[in-house]
């Protein structure tokens, strides 16, 4: 199977690696080959965190520039930073609530307006599903369910190679039992927003 490439980016502490693992294990359970790359270490201290996944036949998890099928951006600025990996057909699921870099005050470069970021994404990628995942997560019961809002969004995107049921099964086996109801709610909210029609 030709690999389906997913680039996931955001900021340390947003649950990006867990989300990626849920997707990877879902692929494994359905006997589809999958490889994933994560970066640990210094990135945890408020830095950029990104993972790359290829679902299908591939040796390396690293996505060639301009070839990602899906971008899952947990933070608007990080969506834009991911642009070199994307093309005009890449589907984008993006959280619209920003996390400002703590060094912003020492920086000469201001944080771009979120609307400007969204316009830029829309003009340079495929379909963009923008949602305030932070507020959705809080309404679902806990801000830490933000990653499951994003995962729900990903699962709804046309062309995503894994069924919703597979993802939900993988979710259940990866998350603490008591957090499941909130995370399920968060997932369904994200799925609903990014489903067509």
């Amino acid at each position: 199977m030709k690999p389906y490439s997913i680039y996931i980016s955001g900021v340390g502490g947003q649950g990006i690696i867990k989300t990626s693992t849920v997707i990877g294990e879902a692929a494994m359970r359905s006997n589809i080959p999958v490889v994933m790359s994560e970066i640990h270490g210094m990135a945890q201290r408020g830095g950029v965190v990104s993972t790359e996944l290829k679902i299908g036949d591939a040796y390396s998890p690293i996505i060639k520039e301009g070839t990602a099928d899906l971008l899952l951006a947990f933070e608007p600025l990080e969506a834009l930073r991911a642009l070199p990996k994307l093309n005009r057909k890449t589907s984008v699921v993006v959280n619209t609530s920003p996390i400002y870099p703590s060094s912003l005050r020492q920086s000469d470069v201001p944080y771009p307006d979120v609307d400007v970021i969204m316009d830029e994404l829309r003009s340079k990628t495929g379909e963009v599903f923008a949602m305030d995942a932070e507020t959705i997560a809080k309404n679902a019961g806990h801000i830490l369910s933000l990653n499951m809002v994003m995962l729900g969004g990903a699962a709804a995107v046309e062309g995503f190679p894994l069924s919703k049921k597979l993802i939900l099964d993988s979710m259940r086996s990866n998350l603490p039992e008591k957090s499941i109801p909130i995370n399920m709610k968060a997932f369904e909210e994200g799925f609903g927003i990014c489903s067509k029609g």
Partner: protein
Amino acid sequence: MNIKEVLTGKENDKLFLLGNEAAVRGAIEAGVAVASTYPGTPSSEIGDVLSKIADEAGLYFEFSTNEKVALEVSAAAAASGLRSFTFMKHVGVNVAADSLMSAVYTGVNGGMVILSADDPSMFSSQNEQDNRHYSRLANMPMMEPSSPQELKDLMKDAYELSEEFQIPVLMRTTTRISHMRGVVELGERKEAPKKGFFKRDPKRFVPVPVTAREMHRELVGKMEKLGELSNTSPLNQIFDRDGRIGVVTSGSAFNYVMDAVNEENLPVNVLKLTLSNPFPEELLLKFMEGLECVLVVEEVDPIMEKDVLAVVGKHGLKVQVHGKLDDTMPMIYEYTPEIVLEGLRKVTGVDVNILELESTELSLPNRPPTLCPGCPHRAAYHSVRRAAKNLGIENIIHPTDIGCYTLGIDSPYDAADYLLSMGSSIGTSCGFSKATDQRIVSFIGDSTFFHAGIPPLINAVHNKNRFVLVILDNRTTAMTGGQPHPGLPVDGMGYEAPEVSIENLVRATGVGFLETINPLNIKKSQEALERALEYDGVAVVVSRYPCMLIKNRKRPRSDAIIHVKQDKCDRCSVCLEELACPAIYTSEDESVHIDPMLCRKCNVCVQICPERAIGAKK
């Protein structure tokens, strides 16, 4: 997945494992009895997983004081007939190198694997040294996996090879393998003896000149035999696509090559070297038959390229060799699919699919890693600056060390001026103290102090230096994910353990000034630091407060939040500009606020506000 499945998973089960987790499973399947490390990214998760499962797996695991000690623990276990596993980041091998060189001379009885996790492109390291050189320097067989499955499988091969030739084996990974996740099919677990027996044999295990000469002869003999093996081993594999061009590659570079060759349908043959030292001369000759040119695709140094050139030169062949030395491939940093594709384009002349890439005209602010909100290091840095300012000291030098506190390099802390390696803050302070008349305040973390800080502190006292050493004791090895160290009441397997006192160690060296501060108490900390700066000699200040990331840390019970009283705040920006805490921010009207989601209630901003405009409210 529950991480315990690395241990409890049955034969033929499939798990989605990180390279580092796969290494642990491989060690368990191979029947490793003793494992030891000092934490370092990208190898850290191996220790994190072992510390959770070692007890249940029936093996002994420790976080050693440093990598040299870790290697010595494992070497002794292997000399006693047990299978042992020591692992570290690439620069850790430098620390261990003294004993490593001799462990290869003495050899082993039980199998011994030394895993070096290299970090091309320096995601979390101070250099990108290529530890494949150690396999040549020490005369040691080396294996280079290119996926988690292969890493797991190679562990078994490595132990068998190690025992057959009675020699330690170097398992060399890179960040992209250690932190790659893939489907791993598990194998059978080998039951292993828990205790070995050391049969004394000084001629074999004590390298003094007369015995070492014999050991070196034997080592060279072993490597010759291993050379024959690397020519025939199934670990070294030819992918024949009937091409006139060949690629020699290993590790994660192999993955990029195969993806490019498959996607672009390129007519190239590939030689994948997994048992890559000793270099398989005969196999390369066979591979090169009928080829016009060879491209060597390897990350960081041109090591295999020089091996290939040597074989071509020795046999007077006409095959062209491309790689780093003729600028076909870049000399530094890790490779990417694009770099490898470009290299293949140059040698094949095939018009590979070059994509037009999207980019943005917008400037994007960076997001560098930073000290966490509430981090005790931030408070310590602030107090050092204030103390020096109060005493009118200028041109101060801040030697620093390896850990989160290296982030003091950023403004406004400006608390990192010189760094070489673990423990170097103290050794270089000795040098600056002799070489300049400047004042010196150096920083070292608790785990780093135990690792390599004690010998240079002895040196400092004995050689009558003058500087202030601040030991930033945050009660954990924070940067690598919070592993224990000898200053804590718990060991690597989670058992209660004696705490080694930093203060007692410092006193024992004869340091004349020693005070311990709580860095979150700003006034007392500044006063202590001023006394230290006035002391004529080596002054040590232990700045002790737990890392904000430690789980189960005692948290303030009060549900009050820290806020800025807008009627009192005159927007002087002292809190913003001197602390730069991520929780403090300005809104569009320039008013100052504290984000209650980020604030850890350390109260440092409350203490430094000149207008007393920051306080708690219910």
